[in-house]
């Protein structure tokens, strides 16, 4: 309890409150821009906060990560354009509400959902994370190696829906993580004499390239502005009152969000859609869903907001990201020396609990923002691409440059931008690549450590119960996507 009190005191220091507010505002703006989700937002700002205190920087990043989802729901409701995949379910009923002249009500629901869903999720996270951490103490090098492989395989299988493509991208990330000095032998690998990559491919530059530069290039292809803005009508407070009329729907959606969040790689988009589908299934008037039913917005938004803290549970306690945003956040934590795992709750308790407290506080700030300025922020979507693209490019490339003051880093980011763009055009997602790059060193180091402990015997990877479970889950993630259709065929055959 002491540690939570200290964390509260720490968060209320002016610089941390300022970071929290900045992260909240920036997160909402990023969320409002379709396509620029939390991943690109964190990539864009990471270089700017590198010299901050780790806790302050993580508070900024955490609130940005959390609030971008809310920003995305604004455009989903107002202009039928989700800011990120996680807001996809919100457009189903949010935009029809707007068409009916109840845009203000929908915005009220969305802001209340951000507060309630986020708070429920954060409270569960604060109390469950240490238990998960204690469990994780049983992990040795072999288990860590297998956990990272599991994370990669699940991300590869789920993020895109095409397992092999995901695995190829993850392989590419792991391969690129071997560039530079080998941490075990000190041997220089694959640098071709180029100094800037001797310490390995720099994560931030790669991240900036894969997400921000790629996004800028995609936007540059289109002549239009990001979006058109609709008229706002209806009252914000009417939305707040409507929200609390559906208590059962709120609890059900929060439970779905938390459960989905804890599952590695399933993510907020699945949580929102599942909660919406479940609300429709249980409704007495399912035909109203998709036509501006407030319960639809309540379910999807509450689940999405409760999912984010669930994402963080696995990310912090086990080092397994629960979503794309969490994967980036994992990278951010590592950059700031907060290595996810069981020991982080003891060694970095101050930072972790400060982050938790800050994120809980963010839920309330989001509500206040929604009440006052949110509807005006949606104007950003009116800006033409020729203005947005250079801003994205300059902010991201400047960040990439400012870390080591090297123009070579700008080239590196542009190179990764090309890779990301080609991957997108080729039907790949760069997320497994980034995760491979983030986890690569951990995978290789634990692989060698495990073999050293066992005297070179590969049996160590199958010896403990945890290892066996992890191997089973990894295999399941490989074959899982194919089991569904096979099962369907079998049952159809029986009929």
């Amino acid at each position: 309890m002491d540690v939570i009190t200290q964390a509260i005191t720490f968060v209320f220091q002016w610089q941390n409150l300022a970071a929290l507010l900045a992260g909240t505002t920036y997160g909402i703006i990023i969320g409002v821009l379709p396509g620029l989700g939390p991943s690109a937002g964190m990539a864009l700002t990471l270089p700017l906060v590198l010299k901050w205190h780790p806790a302050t920087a993580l508070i900024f990043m955490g609130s940005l990560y959390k609030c971008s989802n809310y920003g995305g729901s604004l455009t989903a409701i107002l202009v039928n354009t989700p800011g990120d995949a996680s807001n996809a379910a919100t457009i189903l009923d949010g935009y029809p509400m707007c068409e009916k002249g109840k845009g203000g009500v929908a915005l009220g629901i969305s802001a209340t959902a951000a507060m309630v869903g986020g708070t429920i999720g954060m409270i569960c996270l604060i109390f469950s994370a240490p238990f998960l951490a204690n469990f994780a103490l049983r992990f040795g090098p072999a288990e860590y190696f297998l956990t990272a492989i599991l994370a990669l395989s699940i991300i590869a299988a789920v993020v895109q829906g095409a397992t092999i493509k995901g695995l190829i991208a993850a392989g590419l990330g792991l391969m690129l993580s071997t560039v530079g000095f080998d941490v075990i032998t000190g041997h220089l690998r694959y640098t071709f004499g180029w100094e800037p990559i001797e310490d390995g491919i720099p994560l931030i530059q790669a991240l900036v390239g894969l997400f921000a530069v790629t996004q800028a290039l995609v936007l540059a292809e289109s002549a239009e502005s990001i979006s058109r803005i609709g008229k706002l009508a209806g009252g914000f407070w009417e939305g707040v009152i409507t929200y609390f009329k559906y208590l059962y729907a709120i609890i059900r959606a929060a439970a779905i969000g938390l459960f989905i969040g804890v599952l590695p790689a399933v993510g907020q988009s699945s949580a929102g859609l599942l909660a919406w589908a479940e609300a429709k299934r249980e409704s007495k008037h399912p035909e109203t869903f998709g036509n501006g039913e407030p319960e639809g917005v309540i379910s999807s938004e509450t689940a999405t907001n409760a999912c984010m803290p669930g994402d963080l549970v696995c990310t912090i306690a086990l080092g397994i990201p629960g979503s794309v945003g969490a994967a980036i956040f994992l990278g951010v934590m590592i950059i700031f020396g907060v290595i996810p795992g069981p020991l982080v709750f003891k060694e970095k308790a101050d930072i972790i609990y400060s982050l938790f407290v800050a994120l809980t506080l963010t839920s309330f700030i989001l509500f206040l923002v929604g009440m006052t300025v949110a509807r005006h922020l949606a104007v950003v979507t009116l800006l033409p691409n020729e203005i947005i693209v250079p801003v994205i490019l300059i902010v991201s490339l400047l960040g990439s440059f400012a870390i080591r003051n090297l123009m070579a880093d700008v080239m590196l980011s542009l190179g990764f931008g090309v890779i990301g763009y080609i991957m997108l055009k080729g039907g790949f997602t760069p997320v497994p690549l980034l995760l491979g790059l983030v986890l690569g060193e951990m995978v290789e180091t634990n692989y060698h450590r495990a073999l050293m402990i066992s005297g070179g015997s590969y049996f160590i990877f199958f010896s403990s119960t945890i290892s066996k479970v992890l191997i089973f889950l990894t295999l399941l993630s490989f074959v899982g996507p194919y089991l569904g259709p096979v099962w369907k065929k079998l049952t159809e055959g029986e009929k």
Partner: protein
Amino acid sequence: MESLKMKEKLKLTEVWFKLVLLVFFGLFFLLAIPYPEKSKQFPQLIAIFSLIMVAISLITDFTRKGKVAEGIADVDDTELKVLDMTTQKTKRKRFYKAWTIILLSTAIGFLGGFLFTTFFIFIGFPLFFGRREKLSKNIFIAVLMTMIIYLSFQWIMGVPLLTGIFWDFS
């Protein structure tokens, strides 16, 4: 006819990307051969695994795309194709234009410092993608944004934005 079909398949970015990956992973496997045992073990393992995955993916692509093409062979989609080609052409043109601006600005940045990259990217996009009649307004915005970046990064954070091959004003 068969060679035409093969050409059509090879046009796809996805196939090309996979072929490049095949070479990339193969090359990384070969380059690791002279490394010490512990240094080459992991990269070679990853390379072999990834090579297998790329090969499976390519085989699946060629077999599946053939089947899909056969299935829709009798559908007349000429209009759609023309429309799609026009959109693709416009997108490609804009993409190359964007890259030209980015690369030229970066090259200028190498010579005079990152601040020049900032200015030329800010002026380049509105000039080549926006309305040229707003030239003076665009120039004003570019200068203003460059100044803001200079003040906040060079003055406050000490990032050397005017350090290039030609001079060093850090």
